[in-house]
């Protein structure tokens, strides 16, 4: 039931029995993929909502907890993902134009980037595990917290509420070990951190599986990938993984407070 269409500049495509035209089929696949990505957006969206809510409820604890993350590793990972997104786009382009060798190169590079991302993530996670930042019974927090009050706060409070300005504040030593509950607020941050980045990493792993499969299929010239659509769809998915990280990086690593 399939027929081959030869388009001037693009790879041949096969038409499934339920479709009438190749355009209809392509558009269906793209719209279908986008609909799936919409579900993914809502999926991660719920986590972003949770992050925003808790951040607004516990601004200080989140501020302090996020300082424990390694901004530079995060930056590296963002760079890696953006690069992989570029190569993924290039891979789709070469596939469209039927440049098989180039497709393999770009696709391979994308997969390498994905592994690189996971490698950096591994370094980050292992450091966090070492410092017992993984939530649960073993969670610990050892960073000291600066508790020197700001002069501005002092002035403001004396106006707002409590009458007389306070005396002798600055003499007090700034050494405070937060107690159990305070620790939990940080645990909350790290819970969200691990759930969000972990889920993202899971998507990266799925991406690696998909892209690798495609790479092998193209390498062995399997008829399934005569068409550029599988690569295009995998590319869409990969770009989405990138988009999630585009939001995740500033909101989790960079900005502590609201």
């Amino acid at each position: 039931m399939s027929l081959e269409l030869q388009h001037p500049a693009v790879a041949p495509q096969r038409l499934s029995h339920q479709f009438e035209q190749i355009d209809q089929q392509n558009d269906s696949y793209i719209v279908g993929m986008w609909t799936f990505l919409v579900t993914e957006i809502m999926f991660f969206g719920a986590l972003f909502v949770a992050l925003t809510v808790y951040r607004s409820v516990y601004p200080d604890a989140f501020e302090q907890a996020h300082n424990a993350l390694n901004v530079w590793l995060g930056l590296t990972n963002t760079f890696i993902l953006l690069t992989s997104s570029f190569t993924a786009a290039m891979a789709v382009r070469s596939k469209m134009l039927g440049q098989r060798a180039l497709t393999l190169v770009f696709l391979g590079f994308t997969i390498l980037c994905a592994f690189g991302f996971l490698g950096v993530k591994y370094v980050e996670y292992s450091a966090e595990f070492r410092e017992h930042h993984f939530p649960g019974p073993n969670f610990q927090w050892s960073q000291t917290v600066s508790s020197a009050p700001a002069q501005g706060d002092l002035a403001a409070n004396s106006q707002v509420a409590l009458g007389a300005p306070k005396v002798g504040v600055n003499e007090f030593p700034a050494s405070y070990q937060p107690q159990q509950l305070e620790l939990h607020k940080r645990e909350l941050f790290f819970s969200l951190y691990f759930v969000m980045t972990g889920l993202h990493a899971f998507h990266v792993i799925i991406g690696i599986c998909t892209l690798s499969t495609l790479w092998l299929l193209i390498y062995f010239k399997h008829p399934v990938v005569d068409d550029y659509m599988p690569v295009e769809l995998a590319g869409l998915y990969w770009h989405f993984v990138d988009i999630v990280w585009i939001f995740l990086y500033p909101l989790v690593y960079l900005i502590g407070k609201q």
Partner: protein
Amino acid sequence: MSSIPLNPGAIGTGGRTRARENYLNIKHTVSSWLLTADHKRIAVLYMISISVMFLFGGVAAAGIRIALVRPHDTFFSSETYNKLFSAHGIIMVFFFLVPSIPATLGNFLLPIMIGARDLAFPRLNLLSWYLYMFGAVLVMGAIMFGGIDTGWTFYEPYSSVYSNTNVVAVIVGVFIAGFSSIATGINFLVTVHKMRAPGLTWFRLPLFVWAMYATSIIIVLGTPVVAITLLMVVLERVFGVCVFNPACGGDPILFEHLFWFYSHPAVYIMILPSMGIISEVIACFARKRIFGYEFVAFSSMAIALLGFLVWGHHMFVTGESMYSGMVFSLITFLIAVPSAIKVFNWSATLYKGNVWLTSPLIFAIGFILLFTIGGLTGLFLASLAVDVHLNMTYFVVAHFHYVMVGGAIFGYMAGLHFWWPKITGRMYPEGWAMLSAFIMFIGFNLTFFPQFILGFDGMPRRYHFYPPEFQMWNILSSAGSSVLAVGMVIPGIYFLWSLKYGAFAPNNPWGAKGLEWTIQSPPPSHNFDTVPIVTEDAYAYEAIYAAELAGDYSHVEAPIPYLSTTDKQVSVESPASPNSSEERK
């Protein structure tokens, strides 16, 4: 309706000839069923699976009603009782109501109604069924071996910290089933967008397709949210992360927010498809265009969209901010408007129709009545102050059973009867169907109406023991549930009976409009020999209407018992002018 020639399947009125090759008899091997990509076979697979799940859920419900006959029940322990109502809720909501109409009738009819050979992604459709089965097996296993006692709402922190039951297994099962319905939703959306037959514009779509489209939007936008929320409960239990646990600063109300962001629209996942079916059935048996087609279509979309803005009305008493309670209440009152539009338009469709009272129509009328009560009692719960008293009582239980059972299940039954000849190629016994419709209606009201009163009396839901003065209402309710059970067993029997002994169904037993009635019963595996070209609106019943008033019933191909002698009488007056679509504006 279209330019394609009719496929003469089983010719004549219920002829005894075996239908020619169709999707059912094209292959008989087990693998041809389990590896099929045919939307019709997948629909049948789904139909069998959800019927089994319905049976399980029904058994749990029976257990609940047995326990509640006495105020201090000793038949079950409280633990068992809690597991029963949790099993009932989880099975019925996630494994029956959500997939019921979309995955069965929707799967079967949507491509045919829009003139397509299949859904856009047939293999995804099959995957969806396997996901459903996997989730169902997991959940049933967890319920059989140990059970779960959180209720279907999985409220934190009970579900994450305190419950000692199989919460993880059940949530993983529900999670997987969620992806099954997402797959269905994506498939439907793309199919409706991209695969309509030439000439089938949006405003020529049958209202069932509109309803499926609206449902799919809710599925796609809502399900992921509850999936991730429940996943976090699992992570809390398994890894000890804390997201909602108040012991480490988490907010259980946030769980409720995210949970109801899906679970309120999920109510519309359950009821919108039924509304679509009712529109089809009413128009067909009144022999008229649906009154106010555009209003009915847009009200489906309005319900789908507004439905996402009212989730907070489940939380008026939980400690949600008073102000957001007021906003959610206001929007909830607004969502009553599209529902009212639908109910009145259906009723108005019957006006001056040539009404053929068949069992699908009786189920449909039952639906409208019960849904009206269910919808109006929803307003009690949307009223802030009244909800303070009624929330979490049996009033809520009664309300959503009126919508879910009276609505969704009556709609499903109407659709099942309406399309049964098309799906199986066999007619069911009409008398028994009417009888079961009446028994179900009476049993249903007897079961759930007392619960409204119980709720106002103050009996909280999920109570194993209750004060003795509530006993009489509970006995009434339990008695009603046995009547309801009888009403539900009868169709099970005659449907199975009809598969072997029913008369062969003609292509168009009801004389209905719609592409699905132009092909043979049961449909061939490729649906259409040539792509149909649509030239009329849906529900262009004018010609049939005029013919019937002139005494011509030749378009009705149903076997003899379906046509009474009075049907052959001729009406004296004929319509002045059947309104065309231009005049309607």
